[in-house]
């Protein structure tokens, strides 16, 4: 499989669903902990998305190219 530009959407979706699977395995998603577990997961996904987008654009700035999309 050829290496390509960082796909931020795939990365965010992967982190999100990994968190969902972990919560499901720990059976915390629908319990009392849901009040803070789900927001924490969403915050983590958002931070990952922001950092990866920044890293992606920084790489393109170094290359002098424009990221697609």
């Amino acid at each position, binding site marked *: 499989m050829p*290496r390509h530009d960082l796909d931020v*959407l795939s990365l965010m979706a992967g982190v999100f*669903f990994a968190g969902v699977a972990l919560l499901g395995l720990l059976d915390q998603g629908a319990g009392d902990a849901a009040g803070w577990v789900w927001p924490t997961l969403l915050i983590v996904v958002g931070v990952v998305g922001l950092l990866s987008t920044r890293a992606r654009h920084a790489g393109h700035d170094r290359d002098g190219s424009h990221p697609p999309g």
Partner: protein
Amino acid sequence: MDTEPQTRPPGGPPPPGYRPPLGGLTRATDDTVISGLCGGLGRQFGIDPLVFRIAFVVMALAGGTGIILYLVGWALVPDDQGRSFGADWLPGKDRSHKLLAAALAGGGVLLLLDRITNGDGDNFPLGLVLIGVGAAVLWSRRGGQAVTPAPPPPPPPGAAADAPADAPAETAAETAADVGDDTTDQVTSDETTPLPAGSSASSSEATVRVTPPVYRPREPAPPRPPRPPKAPRPRSALVAVTLSLLAILAGVMALAGADVVTGLALALFLVAGAMIVGAWLGRARGLIPIAILLGFALFVANLIDVPLQGGAGDRLFVPASVAELRSPYRLSAGELRIDLRHVDFAGRTVPVVASLAAGDIVVTVPAGVAVAVDAHVGAGDLLVFGRDWSGIGIDERVERAGAEGVGRLELDVKVGLGQLEVRRAAA
């Protein structure tokens, strides 16, 4: 003055100069799943349309808002050929602002209706804010027009100095601003020119000379060139490899006798890991729908939290003694009735366990026996000795005292989806 560059006859190709509302947003005809709305949004904002599709699906699942928004967008946003269901219902200029205002105010009304019908006050401030923003958008476009008369016809050249001296400066300025707002091609705005000394006009009247605007018709925009067809992408092996690994995992989990929640969670881990790999290698976006399905199944499995055992159908158990009890009573789907009224507990404490994944359970306990009920309902109704609960994730413990020396029943009952009822037999 309304130059109406946006109006067009119904049907047929858009005329030259046709400018779709909402800043050129159109539904993509070459990237269509349902109507091309998400494709157009993605093209408009330079984002993958999948982001909008996921957002609409998530909003649709979370209360149905996504369905309403999508239908509104489908009706009002024209496609690449300029065809739309509802945009022409809003005649006149500034149609894009009217659409935006209508969408905002409509969203606010929906939230308020939701509050009224469901009694949920969480969305009340947001609904008011949306209505207010929508009204502000509409009002900001109408504010200058309500007090402004129609502009006078352009005077002959050289007549600027002969403008009527009794015309209030504010009105003239408003007129010029309003007309310029419509045409965007106003080229003259000579607002104040002092009269020469000795003029017969009074000083207050002589300070303003307004040159009426000169209009140039808008240059017709060139027609949008047809989009070139997308080049087919090379197929990625990542999705096929992940699906193969999922099949292997499912077989191994079945052989190992793992429970459904564990199997679904591990499968979701596998798909999520493939998506993270796909951020750099191959393409993994095709796995997102699979992950959504697995996540939903995991949520339901966690909610039900009942073993899938005992087959399906209707079951009736009427034990006559403690020795005839067959706890645990299991059923996957159907109706499970356990009638304990003939059991003599003889002063002992007896545990009884029953579970049903989907359907109804009715447990009848003898008169006089002390009872402790631990009940779980994943989604549905719970009725215990006349008290009832409804909803999802119901976990209740109810205790009732009995007669002296009769005995005690420890009842542990679970229903995944359906109804659970515990009643006491008549004495």
